[in-house]
C-alpha cells in the first residue's frame, strides 16, 4: 500500500506539471507571429485586444486590414488577436519592432500607454493608435473619426422610432470619446422629439455580454424602447429582440442578432484612413498628427436600415445623412450653444461652440440624459 501510494502521488504530480507546462507554451503560441521573412515588403501589424469574432470593434478593423492587404501590393499585413494591454502588449510590440515591422496599428485606446513606451525606443517604427489622444513626433499618431457626427443622425432615427420617449444606452467606461457619441445621440433625438430622455447605465468594461444583457433588460423594464451601446458586444440587440423593442448598434452591423429589433448602426470603413496613411508612410511624407476625419471622409457610414424602419423615416434619415456626407451642412452644428448639462449648468453659451479641447476632455452629459455617474 505504501509503495502504490507513493507511485500515485508522483504520477499525479507529473501529470499536473505537464498540464501546467502545456498552459505556458500555449500562451506564447497564441501571440506568436507567423510570417515568412521577406525583406522587400513593408510589414504592417494590426493588434487587437479582443477576438475578431466579437462582431464589434476588432471585427471592423480586421475587415479594413483585409482591404489594405488587397489594395496595397507592397505591404504585408499581419493581425494579432487577444493582445491584452499592459505588459503583454508592450512585449508584443517590441517583438514586432525587432522583427522589422515598419507600421504597428494599435486598435484601442487601452494600448496608448504601451505604445508611448515602445515608440520611444524604436523611432523608426511608426505607430497608429485608434481612439488614442496623443500625437508625438516622430512616430506616434492617433486617429478617430468624429463619431458623434454620425450618432447625431442615429439619435434622430431613435427619436423618430421611440414610442415611450425613453432611449437606453449601455456605456462601458466614462471616456470623452464615448460621451461625445452619447451626447450627440441625445441631441439628435431631441432635435426631432423634444420630450425624449436617454437613460445611461455603465457596466465598467467594454466586454461583458452577460452584464450588458442585464443592463439592457433593466433599461427596457424601466421604459426604454430604443437601445444603443458603447460596449463591444451585440448583447443589447439580443435583449431588444427578446423583449420586442428596438436597437441601434455602435461599432459594427449587428443585425443578425436581432432581425426585428435592429434599426441601423455603424459601418466603419477604416480602410479609407489606413490606405492613404500607409501610402504617406511609404512615400516618407507622413507627419504624425491627431487625425480626426469627419463624416465627409467616408470612414463613417451607416449600416443599411433594418426591416422595422418605415419608409418615411428612412427617407428623412437618408436625406440628413446625404447632406452631411456631401458637406452641404455643418456636420456638428449641434455643438453650438446654448447647451445645458444634466445638472442645469450652462456649458456652452449662446453664440459659442464647443472647442476641440473641450471635446477631448468631455466629462458631462447634456440635459435629457439620466445617469447616476458623476
Amino acid at each position, binding site marked *: 500500500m505504501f509503495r502504490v*501510494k507513493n507511485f*500515485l*502521488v508522483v504520477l*499525479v504530480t507529473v501529470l*499536473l506539471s505537464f*498540464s*501546467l507546462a*502545456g*498552459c505556458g507554451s*500555449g*500562451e506564447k503560441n*497564441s501571440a506568436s507571429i507567423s510570417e515568412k521573412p521577406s525583406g522587400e515588403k513593408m510589414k504592417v501589424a494590426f493588434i487587437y485586444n*479582443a*477576438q*475578431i*469574432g*466579437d*462582431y*464589434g470593434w*476588432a471585427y471592423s478593423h480586421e475587415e479594413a486590414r483585409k482591404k489594405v492587404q488587397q489594395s496595397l501590393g507592397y505591404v504585408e499585413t499581419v493581425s494579432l488577436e*487577444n493582445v491584452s494591454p499592459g505588459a503583454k502588449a508592450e512585449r508584443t510590440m517590441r517583438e514586432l519592432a525587432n522583427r522589422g515591422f515598419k507600421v504597428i496599428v494599435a486598435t484601442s485606446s487601452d494600448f496608448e500607454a504601451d505604445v508611448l513606451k515602445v515608440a520611444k525606443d524604436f523611432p523608426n517604427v511608426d505607430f497608429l493608435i485608434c481612439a488614442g489622444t496623443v500625437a508625438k513626433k516622430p512616430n506616434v499618431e492617433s486617429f478617430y473619426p468624429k463619431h458623434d457626427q454620425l450618432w447625431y443622425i442615429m439619435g434622430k432615427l431613435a427619436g423618430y422610432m421611440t414610442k415611450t420617449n425613453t432611449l*437606453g444606452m449601455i456605456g462601458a467606461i466614462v471616456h470623452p470619446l464615448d460621451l461625445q457619441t452619447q451626447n450627440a445621440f441625445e441631441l439628435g433625438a431631441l432635435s426631432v422629439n423634444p420630450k425624449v430622455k436617454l*437613460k445611461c*447605465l*455603465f457596466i*465598467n468594461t467594454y*466586454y*461583458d*455580454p*452577460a452584464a450588458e*444583457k*442585464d*443592463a439592457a*433588460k*433593466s*433599461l427596457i*423594464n*424601466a421604459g426604454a424602447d430604443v437601445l444603443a451601446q458603447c460596449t463591444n*458586444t*451585440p*448583447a443589447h440587440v439580443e435583449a431588444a429582440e427578446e423583449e420586442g423593442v428596438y436597437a441601434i448598434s455602435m461599432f459594427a452591423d449587428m443585425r443578425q*442578432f436581432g432581425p426585428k429589433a435592429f434599426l441601423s448602426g455603424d459601418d466603419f470603413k477604416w480602410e479609407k484612413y489606413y490606405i492613404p496613411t500607409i501610402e504617406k508612410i511609404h512615400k516618407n511624407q507622413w507627419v504624425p498628427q491627431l487625425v480626426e476625419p469627419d463624416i465627409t471622409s467616408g470612414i463613417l457610414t451607416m449600416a443599411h436600415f433594418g426591416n422595422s424602419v418605415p419608409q418615411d423615416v428612412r427617407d428623412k434619415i437618408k436625406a440628413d445623412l446625404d447632406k452631411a456626407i456631401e458637406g452641404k451642412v455643418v456636420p456638428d452644428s449641434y455643438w453650438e450653444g446654448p447647451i445645458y448639462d444634466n445638472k442645469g449648468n450652462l456649458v456652452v453659451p449662446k453664440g459659442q461652440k464647443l472647442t476641440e479641447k473641450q471635446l477631448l476632455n468631455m466629462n458631462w452629459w447634456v440635459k435629457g440624459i*439620466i445617469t*447616476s*455617474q*458623476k
Partner: protein
Amino acid sequence: MELGAIIWVITMGIRAGTPLLFAATGEILNQRAGTMNLGIEGLMLVGAISGFGTTMVTGNKWLGLLAAITVCALLGFIFAFIVINLKANQVAAGIALTIFCTGFSSFIGKPMIGVMGTSKFAPLSVPILSDIPVFGKIFCQDLLVYLAVIFAVGAWFLLYRTRAGLHLRAVGDSPSTADSMGINVYLVRYIYLIVSSISAGLSGAYLSLAYSSNWIEGMTAGRGWITIALVCFSMWNPLRAIAGAYLFGMVSSLDFRLEASGIDVPSYFLRMTPYLLSIAVLVFIGWRMKGKRMVVPATLGIPYERESR
C-alpha cells in the same frame, strides 16, 4: 418601485440565483460528508467553458452539458484522491484546485472569446402558471432553473428522509462510528465530492449556456465563493439554500434595475451589493449561532484515518 419592476427583479433574480443553487446544493451534500470542496469557483469556470465550447463545436447544448459534467467529474475525482486518500489539507487543496481550474479554463477558452453562442437554453412557459396575468412572468424560466429546484428538493429528501442520507450525515458527524457500522466512509466521501464537482460544473454550464450564451474569462465573478457563504447561510439544509440562492440572485438583479430607475448611487456601490450581502450574512449567522449548538458537520475538513481511531 412599481409592481412590474418588482416582478422583473424576482424573475431575473431566480435566473441569477440558479447557478448558486446548483453549486450550493452539491456542496451541502459534500460538506455533510465531512469534506470541503473549495474548488467550486474554478470548477464553475471549467464547466462553463466545457459546456460552451462543446456546444459551439457540436451544435448541441445537451452535449455541452454532458461535457461539463464529465470534465468536472474527472477533476473532482482527482481532487477527491488528493484530499481523501492522500489526506491533503482540504482548504489548501481546494484553493489550489480553483487556481488551476481558473487558468485551465482561460487557456482552453482562448478561441472562444468573443464568439456569440448559437444554441442555448431559452425560457419556456409553463402551461397554466405562466398565464397568470402579472405574476405569470415569474414562471417563464428555462429548463435548468426547474432542474435546480428539483435537485435541491431531492437533496433535502435524500438527507432527511432516506437511509442513504442518514449514512451521509453519519459519515460527516462521526466517521469512526459510521465505519464501525460497516459504511464505507471513503466511498461515501468520494461520491459526494464528485457530486459537488458535477454540480459546480453544471452551474458554470448554466452561466455560459442559459444565463448568457458566451464565454468570458472569469465569467463567474466570484459566484463560487458566494456559494460557500450560501452553504453556511443555509445551515447545510438544501431547502434554505433555495431561499438563500434566490435572495442573492435578486440582490444582484436589483442593482442594474435600481440604477435604471435613476437612483443616484454610484454604480460601483450597487455592483458590490451581492458580495456585501455575503459578508453580512456570515456575520449574522456567526452572531446568532454564538453559544448554540452548531449544525456544522462535526468533522468538516478533517481527513478520516482508520488507523488513528
